[in-house]
């Protein structure tokens, strides 16, 4: 298996396109960094921040009574800050930047999908699939090695994004004066979390839809042997899926069964779910079902296929 992974890795990294992708990711992160630095304002700490927060809470409570909107989270966090002397505003620092660049995960996702869409289909296009499948290794193993390679590639892209952002952020914006914890609100409780741990979890959760779409692209690639279809459909859904699902969710309750209603697990930690009645475990089960369907189709058809390319 290790040998198969080495092979796939070699086939990805001996093509110049891969380095172009990594370069684009780094250049865009750098641009975001430079832009943020340019717009950075002089930071002035508010000496009366506790006063401000109290006023804000009063206003929020009033609003909650009038509009029935849910501000429990904001109020709880504000109260926690007052109690434990954690000012809300701080200087823009490395971790704020890393959090901002998490927006670029979609770019990492895009590149992962491109690789994923090609990893099976290209072998058919190149005609190399014939020589690949007449080795004493069964087809499932070959396909599994290709899927694992996709996951490793996604991890690499996210790793590059995270590490590069952290380095660039540290250079441009400096480290925070003291370790500021992230305040997490879950089930009515406010807890402190190490900021780096929080960011890693945040990156992980934000990549779920990327991973799911890469899996879908992989499935299309292996079922239809067509990388353009796989790239096109997956990227289209990557950019529009969430929006469409939100629109549908406003009208229909079955929208909760759509893949994209379930990919944003962070909603369960720090927000409200897309539809009433959805829970973390519901979403995880839905994700697992989608994942299983994609993998089943990919493996079943790849194993049975007559190779006549």
């Amino acid at each position, binding site marked *: 298996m290790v*040998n*198969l992974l*080495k*092979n796939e890795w*070699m*086939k990805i990294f*001996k*093509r110049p396109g891969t380095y172009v992708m990594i370069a684009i990711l780094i250049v865009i992160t750098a641009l975001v960094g430079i832009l943020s630095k340019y717009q950075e304002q002089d930071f002035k700490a508010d000496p009366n921040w506790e006063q401000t927060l109290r006023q804000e809470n009063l206003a929020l409570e009033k609003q909650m009574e009038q509009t029935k909107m849910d501000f429990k989270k904001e109020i709880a966090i504000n109260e926690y800050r007052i109690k434990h002397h954690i000012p809300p505003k701080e200087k823009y620092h490395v971790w704020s930047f890393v959090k901002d660049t998490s927006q670029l995960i979609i770019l990492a996702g895009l590149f992962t999908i491109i690789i994923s869409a090609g990893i099976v289909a290209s072998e058919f296009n*190149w*005609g*190399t699939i*014939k*020589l*690949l*499948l*007449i*080795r*004493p*290794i*069964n087809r499932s193993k070959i396909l599994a090695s290709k899927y694992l390679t996709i996951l490793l590639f996604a991890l690499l892209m996210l790793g590059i994004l995270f590490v590069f952002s952290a380095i660039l952020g540290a250079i441009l914006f400096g480290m925070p004066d003291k370790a500021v914890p992230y305040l997490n609100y879950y089930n009515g409780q406010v807890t402190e979390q190490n900021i780096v741990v929080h960011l890693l979890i945040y990156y992980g959760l934000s990549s779920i839809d990327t991973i799911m779409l890469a899996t879908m692209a992989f499935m299309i690639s292996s079922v239809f042997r067509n990388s353009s279809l796989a790239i096109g459909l997956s990227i289209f859904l990557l950019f529009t899926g969430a929006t469409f699902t939100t629109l549908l969710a406003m009208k229909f309750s079955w929208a909760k069964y759509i893949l994209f209603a379930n990919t944003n697990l962070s909603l369960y930690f720090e927000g409200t779910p897309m539809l009433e009645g959805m829970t973390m475990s519901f979403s995880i089960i839905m994700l697992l079902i989608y994942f299983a369907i994609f993998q089943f189709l990919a493996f079943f058809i790849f194993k*049975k296929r*007559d*190779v*006549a390319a």
Partner: protein
Amino acid sequence: METIVELKNVTKVIKGRTIIDNISFQVNKGEVFGFLGPNGAGKTTTIRMIVGLMGITSGDITIGGASIKTQFEDAVGHVGAIVENPEMYKFLTGYQNLVHYARMSKGITKEKITETIELVGLTERINDKVKTYSLGMRQRLGLAQCLLHDPAVLILDEPTNGLDPAGIREIRDYVRLLAREKNMAVIVSSHLLSEMEMMCDRIGIIQNGRLIDVQHMKEFVHNTEVTYELEVVPSESALSLIKTNYPNVRANLSRNGISVELPKEEIPNLVKTFVANEIQIFGIKEVAKTLEDRFLEVTAEKGAAQHG
């Protein structure tokens, strides 16, 4: 002789159409088996089934005793193959391509790779990207790829396609060498008859998905009476002389004179008769039937028998 590859009543149906119809044959160690047939007869489909690229509708194929259906890994471990063109990863070097395939079989050492590269004569260019290779070099790299794990069976589908005469000759010499020295069984497919004649020990002829004949090459080509071509003037009177002297022999006028099917011993007598009758003789030539003639004969006969 030890059988290494065996096809038993192999049938392939695709979308209701029978592509391969009940084919059975064996290939022994150390022999070159030619698989001959016109385009679209089912050569490539059969080869794809042997190496497990295509499923088998009914029947079974065993390689070294292992079924390609149920013991794929064991069976295909005995095989090295080029199916159609030897497509390689063009963005990798020749060496990287070989490393890629070497990683997929057990126990191939670096020395073995180097040795194989030397065998196919690619040592100088092995670190260049495959996209810079000529077709002949790709073909040789393809050969290296299937020899890496010392297979017991070598399968080459149209190995000489698109090669120049020197390249064709090179491949032919390799194939004969491997069968003789390494006791490999080689299965070669082609629609080029002259190629097969020089390369193979036995041939199977396939037409419309049916195996219509398996014969030893020598028998296949020479098992018929020899035809002589006589360059004589005047040919008309010579022909009537033959007909009176040998009433049971087939003889007719040909482009250069007369062609006649006679046993060798009768030729001197015939010459005497011609001389006595003042017929001028410019030449007598033995015309061996080529594989091509035989092939057309066989496919026409069997085709007619099957359809008629």
